[in-house]
């Protein structure tokens, strides 16, 4: 407290009292006294109003910075231990790095870019969603909300996932809505719609962003006897949504579902 000692003691006390009152750091008794002082001392009241105006101006005009989703993901990746695949990639990157070190360094210096885009790290998304599907099949109900009415299913999701999924009516194509379920990827809730087709159950999960972001590739993939199909909607990378269907039916059936789904989404926009 070296900086205000040159002021006369009362002036200094007054200055500090104003700050504490403004910042809500006075207890109730002190604040009561201060308010009484404000009434009796117009100069003090004017000073207090000026400080209040400054505070308002800062609040209105100098907002807090918001971390972009991309930046947040990169920071999150710091704490995620690399899975085997990523370790391989790193090894490959290490070898590649030796030959391309000079070039990349020049690029990084030139652009001021000090980050590398990190792909999402963690267990395979498809396998996680298959696990969710299997869990749903083992349980009495493959759904957390059982309804064939999309106007029931969509609001149910609204309170459970950050963005309520596209809920479409595919009954005309032979896929009846059975309900919805929340699956979990990287500790984050993901909306999964459940459809019935003949005697089969199909889970369709909606993931924001591009397939690459989730380490997925569009198209078919068979894993442990389950067929999966990945497709996207949206034109630009910003508004792309990735869908992944999991079921035990023939891959061709998932094509039909995806086609009907795309058509229904397009019809809604």
């Amino acid at each position, binding site marked *: 407290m070296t900086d205000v000692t040159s002021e006369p003691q009362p002036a200094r006390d007054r200055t*500090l009292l104003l700050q*504490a009152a403004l910042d809500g750091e006075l207890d109730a008794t002190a604040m009561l006294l201060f308010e009484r002082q404000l009434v009796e001392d117009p100069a003090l009241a004017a000073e207090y109003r*000026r400080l209040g*105006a400054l505070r308002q101006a*800062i609040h209105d005009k100098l*907002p*807090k910075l918001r971390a972009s989703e991309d930046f947040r993901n990169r920071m999150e990746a710091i704490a995620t*231990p690399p899975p085997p695949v990523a370790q391989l990639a790193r090894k490959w990157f290490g070898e590649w790095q030796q030959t391309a070190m000079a070039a990349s360094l020049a690029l990084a210096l030139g652009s001021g870019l000090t980050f590398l885009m990190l792909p999402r790290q963690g267990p395979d998304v498809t396998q996680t969603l298959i696990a969710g599907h299997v869990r749903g099949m083992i349980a009495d109900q493959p759904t957390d909300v059982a309804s064939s009415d999309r106007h029931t299913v969509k609001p149910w999701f609204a309170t459970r996932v950050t963005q309520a999924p596209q809920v479409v009516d595919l009954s005309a194509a032979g896929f009846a809505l059975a309900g919805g379920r929340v699956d979990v990827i990287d500790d984050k809730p993901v909306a999964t719609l459940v459809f019935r087709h003949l005697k089969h159950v199909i889970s369709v999960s909606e993931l924001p962003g591009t397939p690459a972001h989730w380490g997925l590739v569009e198209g078919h993939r068979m894993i442990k006897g389950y067929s999966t199909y990945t497709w996207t909607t949206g034109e630009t990378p910003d508004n792309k949504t990735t869908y992944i269907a999991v079921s035990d039916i023939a891959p061709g059936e998932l094509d039909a579902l995806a086609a009907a789904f795309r058509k229904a989404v397009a019809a809604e926009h």
Partner: protein
Amino acid sequence: MTSTPAERLFTEVVLPHLDDALTLARWLTGNATDAQDVVQEACLRAFKAFEGGRIENPRAWLLTITRNAAFTWLARNRPKSLVLTADPDMEETAGSAERPETPEEAVTAAADADRLEKAMAALPQAYRETIVMREINGLAYREIAEVTGVPIGTVMSRLARARNLLIAALAEPKDRP
């Protein structure tokens, strides 16, 4: 889904306060791009420091690390800025006398964002970080004292000074450089 203690701690302790860290770093380095560099460095440091166990005040903890990372960054990239503001508490000793006239509150209230930003950027670093943590991050005196490592009385007098300087800067005629 399994996650290691470090991951959980990181998700619960660091990520919720990224906005605050970026904001402080932005006002210490002067722009949002450099702020990202600083916060990334702070996150790496935070991750390494996690072994220690429980963290009482996650936000203050992350801001302390961010502030240190910012000073390292400034020493490397803008060594002059650190010298200039080495000890602001000693530089100015005049009290309210530093403000020649008493501007109307309306003048302060009407200041445009650009002007306010410039006035904020022109504050000595110790005043700037204190008022940013108070007004933009919304920290209590106790927390600011913890992050900056000074007594609460110093936090209060720095705030008083920062506010007076800002009000004075906003009251100056507009055509001044």
